[in-house]
């Protein structure tokens, strides 16, 4: 047993940490959010040059990582900086279906994704789908030229407005929530019948509502087998959940440090507020929960590539459920221990708190993953 990072991953972690400490801050983040695309192409390019996108992908697509621990290392660092660039959308959720199940031609396009010059997004969720993993009402029907015609609505697609290609899930058979009968397609941004409405998010990122009105794609745009999309989505989603949990671990580390510092320096009633036992004990309880969340994230990372599907999925849902609980606790306690100052936009901490709580709204919330964990245990 070894809980230490390998030398390469430690270097990756150090590289990312150094960039974020030296080159990234919340002013830069806000400017990126306020720009047309909701993130900075310049920052994205720099992070790509440092290898942070490539670290998310396996060697067979010219990445140099791609296992769970790589994802965890990169996203913990991104969380510390509250980075808004589209790592989750393009580097994980968009890329994973391709490197897991794509054709050689599709895989060859990931080199551009690793270089940062090409953006992907996963358009899977739907307006009535909430967190249901196989709710797909969007239909794909055979068109005359042996291609496919896609019609439907996709909801809250992370960075869907700027993606060069969308990975779209569509139903080729079965009922709306069936696991069988979902097929994945790569849809280019300029396809006829594709509409995208961009909207900012409360935590400073960008999503899009996507409409597909008879979008035509050739059969070569299909990822994997016809009707076999659910298993690909499950594995890609597992990677996405791990990324979110690791991001949350990074965020909580920053909030922990900032709040501890505040307890030591803020004086009321003639002493540092950290001298009050009630705050000491609450902080300790928070430390315990953060360690629990970090541990669950490490377990999910270690099982990501084990080939043990049930073990992996249980660990993934356990981590996300725990993160929903711990994330809320940490967000609320850190604001409360700071008091009014943490309610202000100028202060960094509430921006971390907002992101931390909104992670619960991505790829399944606390309750969704509790139900799922239970169901997996009964399977």
């Amino acid at each position, binding site marked *: 047993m070894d809980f230490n990072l390998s030398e390469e991953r430690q270097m990756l972690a150090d590289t990312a940490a150094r960039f974020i400490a030296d080159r990234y801050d919340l002013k830069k983040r806000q400017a990126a959010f306020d720009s047309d695309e909701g993130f900075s192409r310049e920052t994205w390019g720099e992070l790509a040059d440092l290898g942070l996108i490539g670290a998310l992908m396996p060697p067979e697509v010219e990445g140099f990582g791609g296992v769970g621990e790589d994802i965890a290392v990169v996203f913990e660092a991104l969380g510390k900086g509250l980075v808004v660039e589209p790592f989750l959308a393009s580097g994980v959720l968009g890329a994973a279906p391709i490197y897991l199940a794509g054709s050689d031609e599709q895989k060859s396009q990931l080199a551009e994704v690793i270089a940062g010059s090409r953006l992907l997004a996963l358009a899977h969720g739907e307006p009535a789908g909430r967190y249901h993993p196989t709710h797909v009402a969007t239909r794909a029907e055979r068109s005359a030229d042996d291609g496919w015609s896609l019609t439907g609505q996709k909801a809250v697609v992370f960075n869907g407005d700027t993606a060069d290609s969308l990975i779209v899930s569509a139903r080729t058979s079965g009922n709306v929530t069936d696991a069988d009968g979902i097929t994945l397609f790569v849809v280019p941004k300029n396809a006829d019948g594709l509409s995208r409405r961009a909207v900012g998010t409360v935590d400073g990122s960008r999503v899009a509502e996507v409409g597909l009105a008879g979008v035509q794609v050739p059969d070569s745009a299909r990822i994997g087998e016809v009707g076999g999309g659910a298993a690909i989505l499950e594995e890609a989603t597992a990677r996405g959940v791990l990324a979110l949990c690791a991001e949350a671990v990074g965020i909580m580390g920053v909030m922990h440090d900032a709040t501890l510092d505040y307890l030591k320096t803020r004086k009321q009633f003639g002493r540092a507020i950290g001298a009050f036992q009630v705050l000491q004990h609450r902080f300790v309880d928070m430390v315990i929960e953060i360690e629990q969340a970090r541990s669950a994230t490490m377990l999910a990372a270690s099982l990501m590539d084990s080939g043990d599907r049930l073990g992996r999925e249980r660990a993934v849902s356990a981590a996300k459920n725990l993160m929903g609980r711990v994330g809320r606790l940490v967000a609320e306690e850190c604001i*409360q221990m700071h008091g009014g100052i943490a309610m202000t936009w100028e202060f960094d901490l509430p921006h971390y708190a907002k992101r931390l709580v909104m992670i619960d709204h991505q790829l399944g919330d606390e309750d969704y993953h509790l139900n799922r964990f239970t169901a997996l245990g009964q399977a």
Partner: protein
Amino acid sequence: MDLTLSAEETAFRDDVRAWIKDRLPAWLSDKVKRGKRLTKDDYLAWHAELRTRGWLAWHWPTEYGGAGWTPVQKHIFEEECVAAGAPRIVPFGVNMLGPVLIAFGSDEHKAHYLPRILNDDDWWAQGYSEPGAGSDLASLRTRAVRDGDHYIVSGQKTWTTLGHHANMMFTLVRTDPDAKAQEGISFLLIDMTSPGVEVRPIVTLDGEHEVNEVWLTDVKVPVENLVGEENKGWTYAKYLLTYERTGIAGVAYAKQGLDHLKAIARSQSDGDGVLADDPLFAARMSRVEIDLMAMDVFNLRVLAAAGEGKVPGAESSLLKIKGTIIRQEITDLLRRAVGPYAMPFTPDAFDDGYNEEPIGPDGAMLHARSYFNHRKLSIYGGSNEIQRSIVAKQMLGL
């Protein structure tokens, strides 16, 4: 024991309900229910309606133009206003300063300021907290130095809610720097149009501007603006805080929030059914509903005791703590309820005249903002930690 309203109270409730239905403009309640930003004129429009019925200063004794209601009547009125979607009564003049002037102000203060409060001639702000004096309010450092017929005031106040609308501010200032913390504080009324007063906006974590900093630099304040005795301001402030705590449990807001939550849960798809049928979510809603049912009775018990002349002391701290926990829990469930659609957020959507098609279910974008904004409930008006210390000391003798 009878926990239902008496015949008189029921008649009173029906009268209040019918009057509000008749007089609260639909456009205004619509703004409130949709969480739109309220302008100064929106608040004043509702004040003007209430004024016609003599219900604006309902906290006050009748001889000053108040309604002279029992605590239970006050509670009923607040519930009906919230349920109907009325804007809150801006509390600073009518609910906070008014009672202090009635109790401690000079005849001149009462004759001058009370009618002006009733008529909305002045918009008052509260100048209590300072950057270094939050939970420990008595450590405030804004100085008022006597100079002939004036005080010269310098310092900085913060968290001044709606201070950007205000022309007057009641403040706590230090008049005796050598006295023990609570004993050198005075209660002073400051004309915010005076030279040396500067209001700076504070943008909160949800991007909104509701609170402000107020910088005071050598502001000349006439000595007649001192309320009561010099160095006795802490006593008046404590009295005011008991008024601030009327309705502190926020039961009416919690009930409204819970109704809203249930409606969303019934209409929200969870992918293959309705969210309200999800056992985990249903249990979350039931748990908070049980808390609220009990809180409703707890609150009425304290109100009834107050009606019998017992001054609510530390009980109001208990109500504040549990009431804010329940309200915060409801905002948490509301943001959960809308699922992925909690994330999209368009700040312009809360302005008048915005009519773009909503993203996701109607109103979904309100809930994450509201969840974050309502973190303030357990911080302001004496944080929940301070309330617990009050209970431990005053009620339990610890």
